[in-house]
């Protein structure tokens, strides 16, 4: 009896350990498995795929630009242009005809399918029919070869350079140049450009946001009303800061990123967010991209911060909990109040996010070492209207 009991206890110990392991595994798995969100909860990207250089097919894993074209993704890297299509990578380096190794911006013409490639120090290239055509400050109206941003609106390619903006009419071949001489540019370092619905927005480093109206052919400047570098006098009186890094125009709403926070302008009202009053883990935003007029994704030096729902000020911020954490954590909150966290399987080694792009329901992010795709299975915009799951747990 005693022997038998001991035997059962002995055999029960591994079983108990096994059960604990299974339970622990199930708990972790439950956290990274897509499940219906409770009512009023934002969508969280829990499952991610990662891509690095060479072994994964990328020519280089220092990612500078991401542009989706339907099911295809164009990637600009420090050493080449890459295309991801049907789970296969193709790439072009200088030896393949790419005029310059550093690809800093990419835009695809909806009308022609041409791919316009901004080259950091190498000007601009048109990739069409398998051939690269090269435009630079010596052979064209491109105002400078240091190109940071490219956007296509109808027949016009807009190029943001370190010495102003250039616009190429692809039908007539004519160039227009905008600098401090003919545009309200307090600085000429144009960092980013976005275009849509008859508007072109240029983010000027030290010059705010410039808005070009295609119909009236006039510039309008948005600047920080307090005109001071070291403060923001009022939160919602205008652009947070004059050092802007990107502009994104969607649903007639302008999202503008700065190195001091995020701004939103609906044509009448401004709203600003900073790290102390929102889900932004850092004010240092490299680029922001609006998914709609009420949702914006910010690529910061400390992960990705997502304003999921403007009306409720709901945020999801992705970053590592500790320096040595193996994967990133999603922090879900309202304003700057964190409500709960969700473990993800994103394993990119650093937080410095330089590029981001939407592709259907998926989210791509590019860093200084690696590219990742958040798989948007069951994605929804805004907040979930689903019934609360009984297994949904608050807190960690």
């Amino acid at each position, binding site marked *: 009896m005693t022997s038998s009991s001991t035997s059962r206890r002995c055999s029960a110990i591994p079983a108990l350990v096994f059960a604990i392991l299974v339970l622990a595994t199930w708990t972790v798995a439950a956290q990274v498995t897509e499940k219906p969100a409770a009512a009023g909860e934002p969508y969280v990207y829990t499952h991610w795929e990662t891509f690095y250089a060479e072994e994964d097919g990328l020519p280089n894993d*220092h990612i500078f630009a991401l542009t989706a074209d339907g099911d295809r993704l164009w990637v600009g890297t420090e050493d080449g242009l890459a295309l991801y299509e049907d789970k296969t990578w193709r790439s072009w380096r200088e030896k393949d005809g790419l005029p310059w190794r550093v690809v800093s911006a990419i835009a695809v013409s909806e009308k022609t399918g041409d791919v316009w490639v901004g080259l950091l120090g190498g000007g601009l290239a048109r990739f069409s029919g398998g051939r690269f055509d090269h435009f630079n*400050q*010596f*052979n*064209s*109206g*491109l*105002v*400078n070869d240091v190109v940071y941003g490219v956007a296509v609106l109808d027949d016009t390619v807009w190029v943001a350079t370190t*010495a*102003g903006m*250039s616009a190429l009419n692809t039908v007539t071949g*004519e*160039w227009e*140049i905008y*600098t401090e*001489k003919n545009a309200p540019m307090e600085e*000429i370092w144009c960092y980013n450009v976005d275009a849509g619905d008859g508007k072109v927005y240029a983010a000027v480093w030290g010059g705010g946001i410039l808005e070009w109206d295609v119909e009236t052919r006039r510039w309008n400047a948005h600047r920080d009303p*307090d005109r*001071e*570098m*070291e*403060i*923001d*006098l*009022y*939160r919602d009186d205008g652009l947070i*800061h004059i050092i802007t890094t990107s502009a994104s125009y969607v649903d007639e709403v302008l999202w503008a990123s700065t190195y*001091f*926070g995020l701004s939103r302008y609906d044509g009448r009202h401004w709203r600003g967010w*900073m790290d*102390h009053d929102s889900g932004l883990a*850092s*004010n*240092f935003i490299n680029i922001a991209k609006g998914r709609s007029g009420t949702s914006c994704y910010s690529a910061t*030096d*400390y992960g990705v911060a997502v304003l999921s729902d403007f009306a409720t000020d709901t945020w999801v911020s992705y970053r590592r909990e500790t*320096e040595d954490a193996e994967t990133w954590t999603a922090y879900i909150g309202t304003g700057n109040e964190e409500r709960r966290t969700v473990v993800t399987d994103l394993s990119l*080694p*650093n*937080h*410095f996010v330089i590029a981001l792009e939407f592709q259907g329901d998926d989210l791509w992010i590019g*860093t*200084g*070492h690696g590219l990742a795709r958040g798989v948007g299975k069951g994605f929804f915009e805004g907040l979930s209207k689903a019934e609360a799951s009984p297994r949904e747990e608050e807190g960690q």
Partner: protein
Amino acid sequence: MTVKPCFAAAAIVVFAMVASAGDEVATTPTPEAEPTVYGDTPEELVPYGRFTEPYKTFFLEPNQYRGYGRHIPEPEHVDTVKIGFLGPIEATVSVATGGASHE
């Protein structure tokens, strides 16, 4: 528009700054309290200081580098630090505009 073939000048100037790592170098003092204004700005020069408190004051904490390579430990002993400068040191000419691009 006439585009004249000209050349833009760019230069990289590398300075070498010698920093002594000897015992005579004093440790940088740590502030006893968090700064409340940028750069110890005198009260009378604080922007809008006579009017109101700003919603946010920037530059009170140094930015951290969070990019790739952060995990690489700081060197234990540094004798020299090379500081690079990238930019025009003389007026440059914009080919596209046919004029000076940085006046």
